[in-house]
């Protein structure tokens, strides 16, 4: 009769496992370390990109921006000479409104998307117009459209994901990378890398980028259901560079608790796609460990006053032992 109760943990058990709950995250961490005035730095991708370039974090190169409806027709001038590019909203979230153009024929203005769909100029124009009118941004605010360089995703994740592009999310606390996972799109998630849509989350060892534990829809898994690949064999290359992006993002924004979304470009290595001032808690499930203890340890025994590089090395050495 009370069997369903077993699917609930007691608060004591969760606390013992070091799980960070939503209320504590909001009250103890975000409201303490992320002053609201810093949010615009990460909410607007144009701003994030500018700051990132200044501090030396690599991001997809900005080709152009369109701010007002009357500028929408300028798109042809902006993409002149480009073969492939991405058009996306500056304040979008959850991958909404991202249009990936893999092939653009200047003659006749033919666009081919990543999924192979053919688009005519007026459809692209309409898409930009939608972005500007706030269709994809929170609360329907007017938005800016960004045209940026296409990332050529490295092949190493190819076996692990269905269509789409996996990315790596690093949680950075007080400048120290605290926890990481990679998000792998599945058939069920429609090729999108969002966990709540059914993508797989694989927790990564913060000291070496190796797979620790995998979940899909909050259920532990070890095999990618679409491709049959062994998720536990994942090892993210350029791990130090990944962590460095996270650590620098702290310097760049001043946010004490942030999530950095990083993709791996085949030629240029890890690139930061976006930053998040309120990263979710699902990463704990992907890692199979609670975040609270990690954060507590950083509070207690990690030195302050180190540079980004030193912090990354500190993390790499600490966990390796």
């Amino acid at each position, binding site marked *: 009769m009370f069997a369903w109760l077993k699917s609930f943990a007691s*608060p004591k058990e*969760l606390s013992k*496992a070091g*799980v960070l*709950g939503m209320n504590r995250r909001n009250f103890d961490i975000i409201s303490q370390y992320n002053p609201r005035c810093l949010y615009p730095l990460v909410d607007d991708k144009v701003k994030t990109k500018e700051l990132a370039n200044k501090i030396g974090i690599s991001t997809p190169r900005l080709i152009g921006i369109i701010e007002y409806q009357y500028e929408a027709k300028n798109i042809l001038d902006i993409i002149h000479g480009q073969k492939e590019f991405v058009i996306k909203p500056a304040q979008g979230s959850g991958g909404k409104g991202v249009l990936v153009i893999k092939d653009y024929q200047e003659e006749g203005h033919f666009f081919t998307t990543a999924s192979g769909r053919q688009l005519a100029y007026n459809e692209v124009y309409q898409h930009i117009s*939608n972005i500007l009118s706030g269709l994809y941004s929170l609360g329907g605010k007017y938005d800016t459209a960004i045209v940026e360089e296409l990332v050529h995703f490295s092949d190493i994740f190819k076996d692990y994901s269905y269509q789409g592009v996996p990315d790596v999310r690093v949680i950075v606390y007080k400048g120290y990378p605290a926890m990481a996972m990679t998000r792998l799109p599945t058939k069920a998630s429609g090729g999108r890398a969002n966990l709540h*849509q059914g993508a797989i989350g694989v927790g990564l060892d913060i000291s070496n980028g190796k797979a620790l534990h995998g979940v899909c829809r909050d259920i532990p898994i070890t095999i990618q259901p679409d491709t049959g690949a062994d998720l536990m064999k994942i090892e993210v290359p350029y791990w130090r560079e990944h962590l460095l992006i996270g650590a620098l993002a702290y310097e760049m924004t001043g946010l004490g608790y942030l999530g950095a979304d990083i993709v791996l470009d085949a030629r240029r290595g890890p690139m930061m796609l976006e930053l998040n001032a309120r990263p979710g808690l699902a990463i704990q499930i992907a890692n199979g*460990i609670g975040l609270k203890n990690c954060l507590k340890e950083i509070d207690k025994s990690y030195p302050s006053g180190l540079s980004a590089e030193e912090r990354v090395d500190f993390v790499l050495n600490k966990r390796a032992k």
Partner: protein
Amino acid sequence: MLKKIASVRGILSIFLFLSIIYAGYCIYYKVEYWGFHFTPKQTANIWSIEAHISFEPTGEPIKVSLTTPRSNDSFKVLEENTIAEGYKISKNKTASRLIMTSPAREELQDIYYKILLFDNTDSRGKTKSAAPATPEAPIFDEQKLAAAKQLLKLAQAREGDPVSQIIRLLNEEPMHPAVQAYLPVKTTQKIMVEIISDLLALKKIPSQIARGFKLQESKKSLSPDLMIEAYTNGSWRIYDIKTGKKGIPDNFVLFQRGGQSLIDVEGGENSVIKFSVLKSITSSMKLAGQRAKLLNQEDRFQYSIYNLPLAQQNTLKWLSIFPLAILMIVLMRNVIGLQTMGTFTPMLLAMSLIKTGFWPGMLCFAIIMTLGLLIRFVMSKFNLLLVPRISAVVIFVILIMQSLTIIGYQLDFHIAQSAVFFPIIIMSWIIERASITWEEDGALNACREIIFSLVVAIATYFVISSEYIRHIMFAFNELNLVVLFMVMLLGTYTGYRLMELKRFRPLVKK
């Protein structure tokens, strides 16, 4: 960090504590002095007693003196009214008599005196007073004295205190032979009172007559009931002369105490006084102002909600349930962890459900949602811009509501007409949100959001639909302050949400 929480929490807890004390005091105050009730629709009886005095003038200057109830005698006087044309009216407060004077007149005189009373059940039937003089023993012949003494002896075997004992003995059925012999053949209430009084005097217990009315509606005119008051243990106590019961019976209003006459007419003869009693019912809330007035607390009452025009009171009554609904939302989101569409959407839905009734509301909601989502799906093919698109949805929702109402009217299907009570903009946003979630995160997530929102709305509905809770939140509106600090204190709650206990369950090591 810890210290900061502790202090914020500490301060809020102190405020919560203070607000509870304040609300507690106000509740006590309103119940005690304004007569508020914890249950809704409480009514208080208001009695109107009318005395009709008529007499024939003798041609001399007229002076009519009528005894009136005192307001501290267990009933409170709301209003006093005298209709006595051409008379000069004055009041003798100490003796509580109404005095009407007039020069000589000729025709038959009619004077009306009317009072409105309500029961406040405070001090009943016990009046402290200095000891009166010991009564003189009645002058009886020997035979009668012997009989009286026998009665007193017999009475001792009866129940109760000496006064009740005597009354009980006299009223016993079947009558004791000794009593039968003692009482005159025909007794009236007045004679009865006199006999009791004499017997008490033999025992050196002072006593006096009291007149009053049993408040019960009757068409015919009444004459007052008599009771006897005896002085024992330092205060006057009143006794029913039939049952010997101590204290004023329920709904009995004392008109006159002591030896004074009910009415004295100078300059008139054949005076007749007739009483009639009428009952009317008012909500106890309405009486509050009158009560406050009697207690000289008008200011306090004037600046309360309850002194506003009724229409405004109703609006405020509606508003005063909001804080509780908000508390529900906070609990559902931050303690249970249900993600809903928009923060206050469920609350607004719950409000609509109150107006429509539960099932009719749910049915209309389902119909509007289904039709709205269908239309929205068709519309998503057109790729409209955001503002025009949501505007179109709003217009569709209005059209759906109109058709529902018309169809409901034609088919005599009244519940369909409750559609108009749903907030149009809110419904449109729900439809918009649901269809976006549907497209992006799949039907499962969309349905889950709708269902969670509904669950929260229904839970909120059940809290605020209770007439009882609504009444309490309005009558004791200081409770909203308590709710405020509870909500703020919940803002510092950092524990796990109920849903997280399930979500993070896999993280617990076995």
